[in-house]
């Protein structure tokens, strides 16, 4: 059957995921970014099977660096080159963006990351090419 009806679709097993060990340790960092509105739910969310995809943990620096590479490449004409620059220099730039006015998008994109994520992605970008 190529197009199973709804009752057949439900017969496909839905995968349940086990709790992720230690996930709640990384919760408050992101929860703090979200402010009071969602703080409570982020802290109290149960790492049960239904909540498998509902992490509030740090995003891996490899994925963050891949997101940076959606815009930044070493051969850019105007977009600043970020790959291979010293991690300390990158982190100083990234930490300065939030609250700045005379920038185009980076003050918005950095405000959505935690301090730990900024630090980790600066290290990752310093180490490599896209």
């Amino acid at each position: 059957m190529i197009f199973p009806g709804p009752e057949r679709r439900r017969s496909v097993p839905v995968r349940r995921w086990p709790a992720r060990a230690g996930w709640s340790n990384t919760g408050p960092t992101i929860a703090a970014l979200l402010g009071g509105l969602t703080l409570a739910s982020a802290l109290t969310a149960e790492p049960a099977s239904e909540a498998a995809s509902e992490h509030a943990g740090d995003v891996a620096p490899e994925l963050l660096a891949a997101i940076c590479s959606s815009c930044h490449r070493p051969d850019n004409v105007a977009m600043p080159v970020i790959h291979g620059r010293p991690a300390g220099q990158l982190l100083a730039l990234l930490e300065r963006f939030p609250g700045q006015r005379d920038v185009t998008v980076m003050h918005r994109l950095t405000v959505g990351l935690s301090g730990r994520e900024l630090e980790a992605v600066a290290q990752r970008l310093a180490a490599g090419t896209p």
Partner: protein
Amino acid sequence: MSNAVIGGLRTLDSITHSYERLTAQGVRHVPAWAVGLDFEAREVVLDEGSRLPWDRLVLAPGVEFDYGRIDGTVPGIEASWPHAWQAGPQTELLARQLAAMRPGGVFVMTIPDNPYRCPPGPYERASLVADWCRQHNPTAKILLLDAKDSFTKQALFEEAWAARYPGMIEWLGGAAGARLTAVDVAAGTFMTEFDSFRADVGNLIPPQRAPALLRDAGLDDGRGWCEVDPATCESRVVAGVHVLGDAINANPMPKSAFAANNQAKACAAALIALLRDELPPPVLFMNTCYSLAAADYGISIAGVYRPIDGVLTAMPGSVGTSPLGASAALRQLEAQYAFDWYTTIVRDTFG
């Protein structure tokens, strides 16, 4: 970037890309249409009759154009009024129609209600059409018939239009009765709720939805767009099937190329874990969308989004646009960023 082709800033060749670099990296490219999804056998049915098995399936099919809600639309209407919302032959056709428009002619664009692919795209197109007309057909008019009462980056576009193309672009919104209800292609007429308009060049951008391949398989659950778990892009309807890009409801993220690119990266990270029977990792998505109001006039919108309790959530303070009243230097910088971004996203996507 196909809007830049219509406005004469780029050629279609310069925005045409092959899969060669991907296949050189070991990606298998099967040049066939997927015509069916067999969830029981976990196989994609191809138009030439063969089947491709999957452990996990990723679907990124884009959008389907839905003329069904507009009276008088006939098969082949795109030959008269190209939507040019899927870059290709229609892009060049619309560019040729614009170039051949009579002096002082009216370019009519109809714009659907949300959601649709590339929310600021119609207004960028209007800008670049106006830029072309300013140089080659200065008494031409561009009329935008919009189903919506407002649109993304509206104040920024209107600021640019007043500065660069005064009196040339007229926008009518849904509250002014500008929602398209019917067309008379032979007469060259667009009918809205309140009025009718004669076009010298017609650009009907139809309402959109997930393609029939997905809807016929029930992946949209009858809603027109596919619901997914934002952390993995896994379908809410069928386990093991991931959908990303314009075909999903990714609210509050827009249907942008950047969003689709970031969904693909998050989905890839999830797939690596899932195929190893591990828990999918935390992910986030960014969006940056540049629009050109002219070749040297760029504006942007950006934001960061995370899945929180299974709901895609905009991070506070992250979503916003370029400032109003910015310097010419900033607009020029953002235009350069727009062209840089295009080069980068092409390399990122096609190798």
